[in-house]
């Protein structure tokens, strides 16, 4: 690994496929997916749009003392505890280090409690608890409080690329010597407001989503969280901790084109990929696979397939959103965790939902689970506002 690479020594992940990263990967490789109409809220839309929900009654989301924070924050906490445990970090020891927190979210930063607002509009005197809860639920601050940390604290709200950006930004905090350890990731809960928003944009599929398929009609929403423990080489060596993987590069750009649609030629995405690849010192031939954004919308998948085919012809690519739904601010972090796990296992799952190649797309995703032998992969996110963010992640095969 290059001297600028940043070790990932712990992972935590929670979303519809599983309550931890191990469970998620078992589901992905089995090809399981069970999107269903939302249980947490009702909708007056004439049709039903399936979502990927995390059960509300999970023990990891409901442990003592966290009932007064949002579900987004509880998802973040659950993923962080798994990641910190996976990294073998002791809380007391953590407090003695320079530890930063960089978390992505969208819903977790929005003051949009519907029940409160409806009561407000009806001139009733709503309970202020939802507002207080919102004010106490900033994901990065919640983790800082939970682990009693005082280092840099940042909640990234870059819409759907937030999780990828948070990992990339956190990696630089390590590279530049600002932190010994960074907890980086993303978290988002499913809610009626975003559900309505995506349906209003007519980019939601009323069936399980079909990324890159000819018949794709849009995305399914999901929820979840993932946290990566990023660690400096000095810190890792001192405690003789083996890295699970490394963040090798991060690239980001703005399309400066449209609020909700990607640049038709993927100009910004190309730039972000090229920047991440250059920083990583990797070549296209080093890539085992690409974890694409692959939402299942017409525009996203067309642009992404074109760019990936131009830059990395023949490199397998897949979207894992067919298993998780689009988890918005958590997506980039969840997909980074999946990318590490796939590199470790030396295989990738099939692109769930893909059945029929689209003649308008120059390339098709992975159609059945396959083995990969290279040690580097790309994980990319495209977001509302024209944000593009790309991570290059690698493992040292000999160490596994």
């Amino acid at each position: 690994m290059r001297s600028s690479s940043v070790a990932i020594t712990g992972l935590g992940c929670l979303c519809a496929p599983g309550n931890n990263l191990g469970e998620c990967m078992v589901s992905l490789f089995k090809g399981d997916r069970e999107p269903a109409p939302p249980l947490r809220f009702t909708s007056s839309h004439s049709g039903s749009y399936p979502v990927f929900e995390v059960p509300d009654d999970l023990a990891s989301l409901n442990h003592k003392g966290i009932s007064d924070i949002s579900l987004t924050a509880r998802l973040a906490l659950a993923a962080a505890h798994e990641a910190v445990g996976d990294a073998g970090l002791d809380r007391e020891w953590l407090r003695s280090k320079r530890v930063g927190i960089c978390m992505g979210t969208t819903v977790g930063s929005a003051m949009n409690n519907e029940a409160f607002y409806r009561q407000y509009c009806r001139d009733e005197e709503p309970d202020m608890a939802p507002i207080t809860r919102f004010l106490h639920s900033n994901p990065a601050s919640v983790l800082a409080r939970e682990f009693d940390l005082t280092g840099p604290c940042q909640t990234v709200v870059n819409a759907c690329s937030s999780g990828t950006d948070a990992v990339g930004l956190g990696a630089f905090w390590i590279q530049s010597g600002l932190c010994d350890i960074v907890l980086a990731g993303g978290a988002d809960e499913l809610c009626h407001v975003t559900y309505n928003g995506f349906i209003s944009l007519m980019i939601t599929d009323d069936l399980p989503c079909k990324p890159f398929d000819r018949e794709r009609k849009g995305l399914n929403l999901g929820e979840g969280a993932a946290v990566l423990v990023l660690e400096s080489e000095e810190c890792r060596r001192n405690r003789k901790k083996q890295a699970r993987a490394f963040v090798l590069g991060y690239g980001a750009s703005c399309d400066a084109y449209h609020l909700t649609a990607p640049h038709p030629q993927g100009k910004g995405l190309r730039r972000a990929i090229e920047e991440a690849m250059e920083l990583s010192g990797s070549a296209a031939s080093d890539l085992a696979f690409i974890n694409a954004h692959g939402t299942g919308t017409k525009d996203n998948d067309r642009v992404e397939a074109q760019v990936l085919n131009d830059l990395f012809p023949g490199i397998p690519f897949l979207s894992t959103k067919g298993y998780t739904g689009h988890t918005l601010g958590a997506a980039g972090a969840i997909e980074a965790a999946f990318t590490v796990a796939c590199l470790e296992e030396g295989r990738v799952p099939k692109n769930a939902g893909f059945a029929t190649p689209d003649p308008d797309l120059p390339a098709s995703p992975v159609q059945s689970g396959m083995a990969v032998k290279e040690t580097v992969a790309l994980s990319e996110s495209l977001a509302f506002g024209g944000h593009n963010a790309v991570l290059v992640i690698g493992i040292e095969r000999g160490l596994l």
Partner: protein
Amino acid sequence: MRLSIQGVGVVGGFGCGVEALNHALANRESRTQSVSVKTAQGMRQMPAFLADTSKIEDFVNKKALRRVDHYSKLALLGAYLALEDAGQLEADRQRMGMIIATGYGASRTTFAFLDSFKEDGDKFSSPTHFSNSVHNAAVANVSMLLGITGPGLTVSQFEISVSSALFTVRNWLKEGRVDSVLFGAIDEYCDVLGYCWHRFFGEQEDAGQGMNPLSFNLQSAVPGEGAAFFLLTREENGGQSPYGFIEAVEMGRCGKEKLEVPEEVMLIIGADGHKKCGSYYKRYVPEIAPTVCYTPIYGSLPVGSAFDLAIAALSIKNKKVFPSPKNGCDKPGIKIVSNEQALGNRSICCLKIGGGGEWGKMTLAPFPLTRP
């Protein structure tokens, strides 16, 4: 690595542009407007520092602004003013990044989106309101209108949003990811925030008497809104900077780390009339440094420290310390600057402490590293 401040653009209750801010600082006051707030006893009037964004039409034609909401207009106006101030309106922006800090994001549009479906049903949800309600809509709108194709980032960390975002500005410039960063902070007032404000603070007996932020035991906050933008470069690229240089950005939490302020600096504190935050200032503001507090100029808003940063930059440009709008302080020993004085060689430290005890500190130096 230090950051060079190339341009400043501000809009808030004090008016639009650095001259308006200069004027308010010189007069030691800024006028509030009256907003109507829903209460259990009917509508009530409450003061607020509101920002007028009509000047944006000097830069962008009306047609292009048709679907742009108040939050993004604040961003656009701040961005154009900062670029104009830096003489960079026509510059190439391929290697420019953009970072925005916000506490609450596009709150008016967030609730407008809820309005679109709350009465008539989900199928009437407005896609325009939804896509403009995300916090990063401002970065998107500014990058589209100004052609900024470097990385974009929006940070939301309540009162520490500004320090946290500025931390990443510095990192991007340090790692050479960009050559310049258009950095801004925005928060907007809306009726629901006013309602929450009234519910949380309005019934307290000492509320509504005007801002008196140095009386730390008093709840005297008046809500504000606005935008403060800066064009920032690495010091070596900027050479001389009329507004000085940002030399340090720090974050921490009261009680965990020592909150140190060097004796020789000017200290700008972001106390904004909230009792809970005031208790932290009372406890942690050191008594050694001459201190000023400018929140009565722009009001109380999560990203208020961006206005302190702008005022610090203006102080450096004008080589003087503007007097504190209010002088009375209920912590004995704090040296409040009550008359205009020369800045001299002093650095300026802007300190913001949030309601949870988290703090952000930004230090500006008047001189380049190699002093002339």
